[in-house]
């Protein structure tokens, strides 16, 4: 009985997890292409040509949950070692999504660029200790907006 529950959760986790992941990646790639002309740079000092711009904090945050299949795959990985592919895609999606949301905010403000970009990652949820948790990624930076007086 316990084994059947496990198998059902595993299959559901795999099917829905894969569906969500491939959809998400498709959307990420499309939006990255659309916002490609809004440069994102990690440098701490604004470039000289944009020194006259006004600056404003922009943030993007996302929370993504692990699915059951990923948890089991990761716990198997724990025994064997190597790259935890299941979690790599999860973190990759979360980072890119957070950056995109920040970029979308900057775009809405009419920014020319975002500089001094930083990431924060944290895990969420009481079950995180058992491997079933969510991950939060926060991306923030300083948007450079052309000043109105100019």
């Amino acid at each position, binding site marked *: 009985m316990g084994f059947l529950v496990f198998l059902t959760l595993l299959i559901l986790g795999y099917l829905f997890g894969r569906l969500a992941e491939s959809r998400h990646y498709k959307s990420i790639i499309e939006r990255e292409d659309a916002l*490609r002309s809004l440069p994102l740079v990690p440098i701490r000092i604004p470039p000289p040509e944009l020194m006259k711009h006004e600056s404003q904090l922009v943030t993007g945050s996302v929370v993504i949950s692990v699915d059951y299949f990923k948890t089991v795959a990761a716990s198997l990985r724990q025994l064997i070692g190597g790259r935890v592919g299941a979690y790599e895609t999860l973190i990759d999606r979360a980072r890119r999504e957070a950056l995109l949301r920040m970029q979308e905010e900057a775009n809405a403000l009419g920014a020319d660029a975002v500089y001094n970009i930083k990431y924060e990652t944290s895990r969420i949820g009481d079950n995180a200790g058992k491997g079933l948790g969510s991950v939060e990624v926060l991306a923030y930076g300083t948007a450079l907006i052309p000043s109105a007086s100019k």
Partner: protein
Amino acid sequence: MSFPNENPKLPENINNSYESPLVDFLSMAAVLLGVILILTFAIGWSASWVGPQIPRNWEPDISLADTGLSEEDLRIEAYLQNLLMQLTARDISAQDTPSGDTNAEPIAFTLHYLPEVDVANAFATAGGNIHVTAGLLRAVESENGLAMVLAHEYAHIELRHPAILMLEQLGHTLLYAFLGLGDNGAGAFAQSTGMTTLMSFSRDMERAADLRASDLLTAHYGHTAGASELFRHLLEEDEVEEGRATSSWGLWQSHPDTQERIERLESSYDYRHKKGGEADALRSLPDWLITTLELNSSE
């Protein structure tokens, strides 16, 4: 330093693995199952080897018997103890004891009668304890049928099965403790694989005990007629409770298939050829026992 006009398009699959998660998962699961299978077999084999080497007095005395038996129940318990003593007495000199030790002393056992239990069952526990339920006494039709069950449990004790089982459980528990697997996810998957493997050892033990028991019966009665009575009863019960017989998967069971056990017993030479040629070879259960059981069941 020039400021970029746009973000570069980076190649995919730098920060995420390219391989299919399903292939990745299945290959990892196969490795884990292989390891578990090998280790569980190793545990099973070493337990079957180490178990019989352990001195009998090291075994803990485990019994589930009630203490406050009535006078009637004590009489039944004494009858069972006596019957099994008779069964095994003839065999003391037997050369075919598993150890091959001809000077082997008779193995001490204690019979416990469980008057409150209506399910037909008998089991042996560590420390030479044999338990027989009231339901079992009602399920068998002759002394021979009862003797078969008692001899079967005695064989478990003689063959050191309680000790072997305890070692298997210990090994199993240690294995999962070392692997650090919990009860969820991959741990549950691995544990059920391990248990399924151990079940095959358990079925082998039951077969060995059946075989030994029929030898004891032959030594005492000269034949094994009536030996399959309990199994026939169990089979009938299964048929009444429809679905139970069909839902039992051979691989997951601790005991061999009941039908298989009946066939094995009834096809033996001793079952078909009653030595001495008595027409009515089955000994009936004592009248007082039948009366007591009937009285108690009608209560």
